[in-house]
């Protein structure tokens, strides 16, 4: 998890904050899944971050070891256990705003998720995998938009999910006015860039580069198991 893993390093708090902004939604989703109502979940999330930034929670979960995903969930569980009840939570962390988070959006997203029988932990992992994909996808989209190629992104993004065949390359090529060969290259580049971005995203949340593959495989398993 690179810079965020070294409390003494410069920019530690910024890096940690960026990560938390990217991945707070799975925490909220976990709390909701555990039965908290939306106000409780909101307060716990904010309180948890407030504590996290004071580095009190880091004593028991060393982020340089293992995955940020597991660390964050374990830390959250500890935090919730320590808080014991909602009243105490509001006394301590309640009302504090460690990060400007949009809980309205969180609640909307949560409502869109599958309402099946996932355990809170499984639900957390699934949300986490989605968050990683969404982060990477947003960056990819932004990169294409910046290069003035938003239309290519829109037309080719479907091939991130389905392996294109000869005919679909021809169709896509015709739609954006390029040759089938060029479309193939464009699709290939899009997929490769997306893959790189997701891996970069995941690399921030593990302590060693070698763990990226492991984490990717784990999240893939989570996504296929949960549906």
């Amino acid at each position, binding site marked *: 998890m690179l810079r965020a893993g070294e409390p003494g390093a410069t920019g530690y708090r910024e890096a940690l904050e960026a990560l938390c902004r990217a991945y707070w939604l799975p925490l909220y989703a976990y709390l909701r899944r555990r039965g908290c109502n939306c106000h409780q979940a909101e307060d716990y999330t904010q309180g948890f971050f407030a504590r996290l930034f004071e580095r009190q929670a880091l004593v028991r979960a060393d982020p340089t070891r293992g995955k940020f995903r597991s660390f964050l969930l374990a830390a959250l569980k500890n935090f919730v256990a320590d808080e014991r009840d909602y009243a105490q939570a509001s006394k301590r962390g309640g009302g504090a705003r460690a990060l400007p988070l949009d809980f309205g959006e969180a609640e909307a997203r949560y409502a869109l998720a*599958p309402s099946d029988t996932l355990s809170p932990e499984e639900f957390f992992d699934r949300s986490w*995998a*989605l968050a990683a994909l969404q982060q990477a996808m947003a960056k990819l989209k932004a990169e294409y938009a910046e290069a003035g190629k938003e239309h290519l992104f829109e037309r080719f993004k479907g091939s991130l999910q389905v392996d294109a065949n000869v005919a679909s390359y021809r169709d896509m090529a015709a739609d954006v006015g390029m040759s089938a060969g060029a479309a193939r290259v464009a699709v290939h580049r899009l*997929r490769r860039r997306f893959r790189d971005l*997701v891996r970069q995203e995941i690399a921030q949340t593990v302590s060693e580069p070698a763990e990226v593959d492991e984490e*990717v495989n784990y999240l893939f398993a989570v996504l296929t198991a949960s*549906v």
Partner: protein
Amino acid sequence: MVVERRCPECNAPLYQDAPEDLCPACLMRIVAQRGGNAETNDAALVEGLGTMIGRYTLIKLIGEGGMGLVYLAEQQEPVKRRVALKIIKPGMDSKQVIARFEAERQALALLHHFSIARVFDGGTTEDGLPYFVMDYVKGLPITDYCDRHKLNVEQRLILFRQVCEAVHHAHQKGIIHRDLKPSNILVTVDGDRAIPVIIDFGVAKALSQPLTDRTLVTEQGQFIGTLEYMSPEQADPANQDIDVRSDVYALGVVLYELLTGVLPFESQELRAGGFEGVRRMIAEQEPRTPSVRLTNLGPAAAKIARARGTNVAALARRLGRELEWIPLKAMRKERARRYRSAAEFADDIQNYLNGSPLSAGPESTVYHMRKFVRKHHLSVAVVLALISGLAIGLAVTLAMYISMQRMLDTIFGQ
């Protein structure tokens, strides 16, 4: 809030929280698949521009077929020239492909025809994929060329006759193409002359492998290769015996398409029945005659006729009068009943252009009956047995009736 939609790829349900409305599982699969075989090879091919393959530098990707990718490449030694380099997709036994190519190389070197692009080199890339190097031909597939330039029926026939002549030249040198189709017959323009050039001679043979369920269908269940121009004997997995008449068949399909604007069998219909269905359709189902096929097309026919400088009624009449006998003869199921050579095919086209009698003709009624009996021999036998049974019964009854009548006459009559 579950949405009843499913991912077309992995069939997982798609929820509304999916990024960009794409299936998260599939997206993560792409990320996880980094070392995937097809993917790495794809990457090597697509990203390989500028790299050297053998003596050739890849310049530009110019085409893609079911079998491979075609690049414009540059040769530096011994002469500097532009060539087309075709890299075969992963999945074939490279050693076998190259061995078959080497075996035919001598014969290929003997091909000298302005309408044949020579395949002069072949080998394997560093990744072990077979590749072929041939003359670079800049042109459109013959069907596209004819439509774009709105060639009328005569002009199409004249152009197509040259294709038959070039194929015949190769046949005389002992080379069968095995994969003739519009995308392998390109039309280049030299001044104001259109010259058809056939590419890939020798390639299909090198790539030939027994036709089975597995070679025909990819993992996604899509057919690879071209089935539309494949002769019945090529579609038969048990058959190893391919001769010049398989090329004659393919040329017949190309001519059918040049005349009517559509294939004798709809591609979708052809591919719908799976491997066995395809084989049976190619082997047994008679194509509709071009005139009937054209008139059944509905509104699409008008555009097709316009591209031939005429109208639907006139084109259908013209096809039906005798022109359609030519492609139908070339496409006959039994190869003994096709043109015996591409030259004979070319001659018959010339006959038509001259207004001379054709060697092709409509199928006779006797032929259709014989064919019907052969196809439905069991039902025909049963029906015949029933009819003869009835006839015998009737005859016996009649005979008995008559003898009874006589007996009665003898007793009471006198």
